[in-house]
């Protein structure tokens, strides 16, 4: 329980630090926020903006106050009223925009994670069983490519092959399983390779244990040894890696979403950075970090549950 409270405390601290960091980063831009707001209000008429209008905007958003006061006001609004700002570009509450985009990102992330776990774990076990056979070597070379190829390049190659040449799936679109396949495949490749590597190593280690040799001596068939005895013990490091992979998955999702015009938080983040829509940037970063921390927390709890040594260690 104490461990649990400590974990939650650390999460709160991290979220606060991330908010502060992005807030101050986003406000160091030369030129001032007021001009930025106006720029989005009068597109193409930036030159005719008067000082009076600038002051009005400054008053409205209270931009003349010192930065730390602005930050505390932002935090206060966020915590007590659930208001994390209004987009300069869309003129809508950031929370609304995020809620609109969140399902797409979760869909993509969950699908990729599922692909990564299923293929990664099964190929890893297969590779471990066939240690130093030809299929093991081939799989290891494939993983080497898997962790080294940039995700966005894989995405482009998949589009090139499956959409443009074979015309099997559409390039972009959102809604059906057909649309989800290519982005999820491109996004998961790195994780598949990473999960597979760890599964292989951990499985090999477990298969070398005394009790496995005993099970072999007893005459149990290989599949039974793996599924009944080895798998459970070999999974601990795999769970950790899955937690780590969530980070690279959410990071990778930004690029993949952009390529496939996937209406998720990642593409919103990139567009907002290009448009300097600061409240939205802040909101997107916050949402991604919270998802990331949440998954880490879940994995962490699962791990503590499976391996009691940590609780008492």
């Amino acid at each position: 329980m104490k461990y649990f409270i400590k974990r939650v405390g650390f999460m709160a601290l991290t979220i606060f630090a991330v908010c502060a960091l992005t807030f101050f980063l986003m406000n160091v831009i030369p030129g001032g926020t007021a001009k930025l707001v106006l720029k989005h209000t009068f597109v193409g008429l930036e030159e005719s903006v008067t000082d009076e209008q600038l002051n009005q905007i400054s008053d409205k958003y209270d931009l003349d106050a010192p930065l730390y006061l602005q930050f505390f006001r932002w935090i206060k609004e966020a915590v007590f009223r659930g208001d994390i700002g209004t987009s300069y570009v869309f003129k809508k509450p950031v929370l609304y925009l995020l809620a609109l985009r969140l399902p797409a990102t979760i869909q993509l992330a969950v699908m990729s994670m599922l692909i990564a776990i299923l293929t990664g774990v099964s190929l890893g076990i297969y590779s471990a069983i066939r240690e130093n056979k030809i299929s093991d070597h081939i799989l290891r070379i494939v993983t080497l490519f898997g962790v080294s190829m940039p995700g966005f390049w894989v995405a482009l190659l998949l589009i090139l092959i499956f959409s443009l040449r074979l015309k099997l799936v559409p390039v972009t679109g959102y809604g059906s399983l057909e649309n989800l396949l290519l982005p999820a495949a491109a996004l998961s490749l790195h994780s598949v390779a990473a999960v597979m590597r760890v599964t292989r190593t951990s499985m090999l280690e477990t298969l070398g244990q005394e009790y496995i040799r005993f099970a072999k001596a007893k005459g149990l068939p290989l599949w039974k040894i793996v599924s009944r005895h080895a798998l459970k013990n070999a999974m601990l490091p795999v769970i950790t890696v899955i937690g780590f992979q969530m980070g690279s998955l959410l990071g990778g999702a930004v690029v993949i979403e952009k390529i496939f015009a996937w209406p998720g938080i990642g593409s919103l983040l990139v567009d907002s950075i290009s448009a300097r829509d600061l409240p939205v940037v802040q909101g997107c970063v916050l949402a991604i970090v919270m998802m990331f921390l949440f998954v880490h927390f879940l994995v962490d709890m699962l791990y503590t549950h499976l391996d009691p040594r940590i609780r008492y260690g």
Partner: protein
Amino acid sequence: MDNVFTNRLRKKNFSLPEAYGSQFVKRVFQRKDMLFALAALLLFAGLSIFAPLLSPYDPNAIDLKNKNLNPSEEHLLGTDYLGRDLLSRILIGARTSLSIASGVVLISLFLGTATGCAAGYYGGFVDESISRVTDIFLSFPSVIFALTIMGALGAGVFNLMLALSIVHWAKYARMMRGQVLSIKKQEFVLSAITGGAGDFYIIRKHIVPNAIATLFVLATIDFGHVILSIATLSFLGIGLPADVPEWGAMLSAGKEFMRTAPYQTIFPGLAITFIVIIFSILGDGMRDILDPNHEGGEID
């Protein structure tokens, strides 16, 4: 902070290396994959250093009459949408990636070593505060973090280096801290303390030389990651200014012509993949040599 991830990271601090100096070099030469990777790396480095001499065309020369050409004898890898020679641009691109990545790795290595050393050596409040900061830096996705910083700073070689260093230093700090903690307990350090040696002397003469091999392994593995991050950010158009030849940016420009000129989306990606593979073979191999019992897990 005690959570599974940090605990596991701490466990990953390799035990003191078994192989050092000439022994280390000898083991590298015994492994065919590492020799191959080393040769490939030297080749890449050579190509990027001599790129201006080797490239058949001026990488920035625009030739609109010959745009989007497929590979031919004149243009071995074809041309891009402005008629620039792809081979020349890929060669110069190696320069961009390798030099920025070297900068990032050196800065993070230096920053991380210094802070990690301070945390591990002095302990107490110093350790507490530095460790908490590294925990926070490590607890969110690095690409997102770099993206946000670039959004604030704007595109540019220096900005990119700065942003990626801010993102990457914490890994080194954590590893260095763990190293220092284990070295500090060794007898030679205790005897140096008893002998009245100053802190700085002990750090310089005993701690850094014993920890540096492990940090170099991390730096080698990280090098590949940094190259991937550079490519990703440029691909999104928030890394480097448009006129700098860079593989990620080339892919981004080439994807618009995928239907008619697919070569533009193939070759720069191949270049990125090869260089990253080289660093991952080297890094994994070095880790195997230094610590034969590692778990093979990956830290991202």
